[in-house]
């Protein structure tokens, strides 16, 4: 379990503090609670990394366009969102919103070892 917990951390943070973190986790008297604590750290660091660079602006732009287009498109539908699957033109903004969100979430992995983290090297 510690292996996959370690993998959740951004690469540069893992390289810098991974060994110490895993040692602390290995000696924990509250392994479940401390594992959850580590997961929250991984989520925070990955979100911080995702909110930097070109991926942030691209992702945010896609989400804004997608939300605007979704609202514009669904306002014309008699049954609102329930009709979306019958209208091919309405799936494009939904895909745009989803693509923007996925781009933000995946940006840390895509940028790999160059990801900035809150470390002395960053």
């Amino acid at each position: 379990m510690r292996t996959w917990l370690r993998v959740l951390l951004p690469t540069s943070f893992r390289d810098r503090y991974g060994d110490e973190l895993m040692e602390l986790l290995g000696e924990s008297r509250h392994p479940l609670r401390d594992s959850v604590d580590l997961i929250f750290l991984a989520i925070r660091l990955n979100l911080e990394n995702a909110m930097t660079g070109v991926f942030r602006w691209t992702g945010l732009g896609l989400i804004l366009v997608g939300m605007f287009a979704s609202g514009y498109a669904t306002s014309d539908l008699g049954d609102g969102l329930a009709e979306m699957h019958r209208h091919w033109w309405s799936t494009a903004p939904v895909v745009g919103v989803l693509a923007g969100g996925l781009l933000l979430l995946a940006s840390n992995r895509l940028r790999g070892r160059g990801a900035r983290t809150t470390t002395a090297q960053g």
Partner: protein
Amino acid sequence: MNRDPQLLALVSLARGPRHGYAMQKDIEVEFGIHLGPGTLYGAIARLESRGLIRVTSAGARRRPYELTEDGRRELRERLAGLSSVVALGLSRLATQ
């Protein structure tokens, strides 16, 4: 009780260089607060990136950290700020 992990880490290191495990245990003993490894190392990473602490022995398996001069100054300022809040609060309570 102030549970700010960064402040607790700075106070722990004020006694001298310590590695993460020792910091965790020190905080547990002195304050009765358990900092999980994620919380603790999140604080250590932020403090290190701000230049308030540094590693004293990079080659050691358990890397000890120590306060820098900026770290000592930051800790003094934060504790002074907390002290004034405590003093004011207690004086107001005394007058009630």
